């Protein structure tokens, strides 16, 4: 390996380095100072994130098994931003006595999954892709079971590992069929050999199902709600945002670069799955009372919106998928952040507990309102721009029926997002959540999210930059 290959793999190598530093720090820190590992980890990761933005050379190594382009760097940077916010938001929670002896585990596991996601995004070979996806998933199961003294958390871990191993199996089966018909696992060679043959289509469908599990698309979504509810809030936030975003990124890359020949087939599949995911996710979200389950189902519906960018196979589609992922990271992390803060301070996480929140905690309520509006796609926050451009991308290829179904679904979604706003601002409550002061790290995390929610929409430069790095079929 030359020096150049180091810079090409800088995202992954830096993460590994950070991982090792935290491990050493853990070993060499005295017992009563273990808490300081949190701050160190966040600072190191902030540096990793910043370095990721440096414009360094791109290229491919390991005989084209690993490729880094400016597009993949952009995707990794977006995931880094999301993870950084998750880290900042978990600061307080990690300081609790029951978590104190396992702080380093949390950071190391999360960084491992992030490394896996980075490898997955940079894959140029299905084997590399598969290794990445496993590296990303297995530590997540451990993280979901992080609060192992809680039954629900352990249950979430088991559910996640079982369902994801099933989905990996299906995915591998599909890949083996594709290998059988095309004789290769390299993306470039598979792309040249893919034909509209039954076995390829079957393989593709299996591959699609596997990815559907990762992105929690209907009908592969059943694990989502239980895992999201059981896992610690910060892990849930990570699962629903970064993990889902990474899956969406690699999915769009593979669809656009490996399977462009059979677009006529997959765009129908994507069409149907998009409609199912958005509608069913919305309908289930309507009746949820637990905030984490509520956000879980709403995030299923949001995953369906990503598919609107896939369906046309156009450059604008890829742009909007990446852009929407960025917007979604900020909005959803803000929502999860607030749920986390409130659960942390008061232990309450039902929607009824939020009644009258504005009168006791106005700042949090306004932040939550902005997050809900952004998720619902209401101007002037970024979610509006994200959704609007996704719809434009689908409409560009003439999918007007799909767009109509999707926009009508945004009204259903608006209903349940407004229920949260209603609880906070309109409902009265005899025992409201007491006024409390959040600590500075929670505030910082929330401020980053809110800044993102507001700036990402208005600053057209972000959209244009993503557009320049995207490509269509």
């Amino acid at each position, binding site marked *: 390996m030359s020096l150049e290959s180091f810079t090409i793999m800088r995202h992954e190598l830096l993460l590994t380095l950070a991982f090792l530093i935290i491990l050493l720090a853990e070993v060499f820190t005295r017992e009563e100072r273990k808490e300081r590992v949190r701050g160190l980890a966040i600072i190191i990761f902030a540096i990793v994130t910043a370095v990721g933005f440096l414009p360094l050379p791109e290229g491919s190594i390991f005989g084209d098994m690993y490729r880094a382009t400016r597009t993949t760097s952009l995707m990794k940077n977006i995931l880094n931003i999301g993870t950084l916010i998750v880290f900042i938001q978990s600061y307080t929670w990690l300081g609790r006595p029951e978590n104190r002896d396992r702080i380093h585990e949390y950071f190391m596991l999360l960084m491992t999954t992030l490394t896996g996601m980075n490898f997955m995004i940079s894959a140029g070979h299905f084997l590399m892709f598969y290794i990445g996806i496993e590296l990303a998933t297995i530590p997540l199961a451990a993280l979901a079971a992080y609060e192992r003294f809680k039954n629900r958390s352990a249950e979430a871990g088991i559910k996640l590992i079982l369902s994801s191993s099933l989905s990996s199996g299906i995915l591998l089966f599909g890949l083996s069929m594709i290998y059988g018909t095309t004789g290769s696992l390299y993306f470039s060679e598979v792309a040249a050999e893919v034909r509209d043959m039954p076995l390829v289509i079957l393989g593709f469908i299996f591959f699609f199902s596997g990815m559907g599990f990762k992105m929690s698309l209907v009908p592969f979504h059943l694990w989502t709600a239980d895992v999201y509810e059981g896992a610690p809030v910060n892990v849930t936030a990570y699962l629903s945002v970064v993990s889902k975003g990474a899956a969406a990124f690699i999915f769009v890359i593979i669809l656009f670069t490996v399977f462009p020949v059979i677009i006529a087939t997959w765009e129908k599949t994507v069409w149907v799955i998009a409609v199912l995911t958005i509608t069913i996710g919305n309908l289930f979200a309507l009746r949820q009372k637990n905030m984490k389950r509520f956000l879980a189902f709403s995030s299923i519906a949001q995953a369906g919106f990503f598919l609107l960018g896939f369906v046309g196979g156009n450059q604008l589609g890829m742009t909007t998928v990446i852009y929407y992922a960025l917007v979604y990271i900020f909005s959803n992390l803000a929502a999860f952040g607030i749920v986390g803060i409130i659960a942390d301070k008061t232990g309450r996480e039902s929607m009824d507990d939020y009644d009258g929140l504005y009168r006791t905690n106005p700042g949090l309520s306004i932040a939550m309102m902005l997050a809900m509006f952004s998720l619902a796609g209401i101007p002037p926050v970024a979610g509006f721009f994200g959704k609007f451009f996704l719809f*434009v991308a689908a409409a560009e290829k003439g999918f007007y029926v799909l*767009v*109509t179904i999707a926009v009508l679904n945004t*009204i259903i979604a608006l209903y349940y997002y407004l229920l949260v706003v209603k609880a906070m601002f309109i409902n009265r409550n005899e025992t409201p959540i007491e006024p409390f002061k959040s600590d500075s790290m929670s505030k910082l995390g929330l401020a980053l999210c809110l800044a993102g929610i507001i700036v990402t929409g208005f600053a057209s430069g972000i959209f244009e930059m993503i557009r320049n790095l995207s490509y269509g079929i």
Partner: protein
Amino acid sequence: MNILTWLVIIPLLTITGILFVKDARQAKIVSAFGMGIQLIVSAIIVYSYVALRKAGVTDEMVMISSYEWFRSLNIYYTVGVDGISVAMIALTSVVVFAGVFASWEMDDLRKEFFISLILLATGVFGFFISLDLFTMFLFYELAVIPMYILIGIWGSGPKEYAAMKLTLMLMGGSALLMVGLFGIYFNSAPDGGELTFNILEISKITIPIEAQRWFFPFTFVGFGVLGALFPLHTWSPDGHSSAPTAVSMLHAGVLMKLGGYGAFRVAMFLMPEAANEMAWIFIILTTISVVYGAFGAIVQKDLKYINAYSSVSHCGMVLFAVLMMNRTAMTGAVIQMISHGLMTALFFALIGMIYGRTHTRMINEMGGLMKVIPFLGVAYVIAGLASLGLPGLSGFVAEMNIFFGAFEHPDNFHRIATIIAVSSIVITAVYILRVIAILLLGPIRDHHFDLLNDAKWYEKLSIVSLLAGIIYIGMAPLHLSDIIRDSVMPIVDKLL
């Protein structure tokens, strides 16, 4: 900077100001100050518009300026006005100004109330000055969403139900509208070239007729929901009656006009062929709106419901006139928007003030109020007379133009529709006079009412500013219709 952009910046500055003041009393002073400046800026805009036209500028839109926003999608922040939008801006600033004074005595969460109210106004102003469909749509949604909070927190009666119903129906309308806008955008360059959201540029080309047939109904109905098009008007009575005074004023007075304005500025102007083909469907629906709304008002007992149904009827008349597609009727439609905006805002303000004194809105629980609160009573009578179209007040000018224009069509369909719609004037007279008789005249029903106070200074200010508009338009209609008339022509020309 373009003076039109100030219409958006001043409300935003006002909101920022409210955020930083200490108590609620200062909040309302800041709001009144900000909206006062807004009123002055609007007056300057009207004045300079008239001056431009006098100087012989014949462009369709004037005071245009444009800033690039999303380059790759060709989205610009483009503003500009013609006679119609200038008139609407003037209306909006008067109603918002009056609305701030009408809610001088809010008790709960006053800062938040004024912030939401002015945010709503920002959306409305932005909508009227936009020439780019994207920005227009953004402002449109921005105007709708504060309604939820305004009705939900400060409303009365079944406010949560009404707020949710109103928001979901209006956002549903805007969802349909969004699909329509995509249809327009992707057909805005049929001969190749760059796609655009700019209204002026799209109006120069002809959108393929198949696309028009698909997307005209989406766009028209999308705006129609806000314009209370039958059968999608059901949000209006519930919403208006639950909303707090200033919100009803602003919503019935201005926000519903967004629907009518958008219907002809976007749907009909950009897709004239389909508009001609499908007009008959919507003429039937709007005729039903006009008559049904008026009949609905007769049977109501709650003052706000009466006025809400009356708004359905009058806003139906706006859409009805727009669909007649000639100069006289279109001019009438715009005058009707202004006239109804002032009139209904006045009604809702008065109802709010009466309710604040009597604590009931049921007309049969009140009576003889003219004796105890003569100022409010007289203002109510004048608003009522304007509503039923008495010459010398604004309603007459509007309805005269509308029905004259509608009857210009020689065919039976249009004439029968016109005759049916005209009958609403009689029905309007019935419910207006009935309310005046029961509410204001006759013996005082309840001895508590003897002790009521008449209007305070801020209430008078609110009422007088609206009354002045109604009387001014009624007495000197040509000042207004001259501004509108020429700007209607480009739209009518495309429709013929």
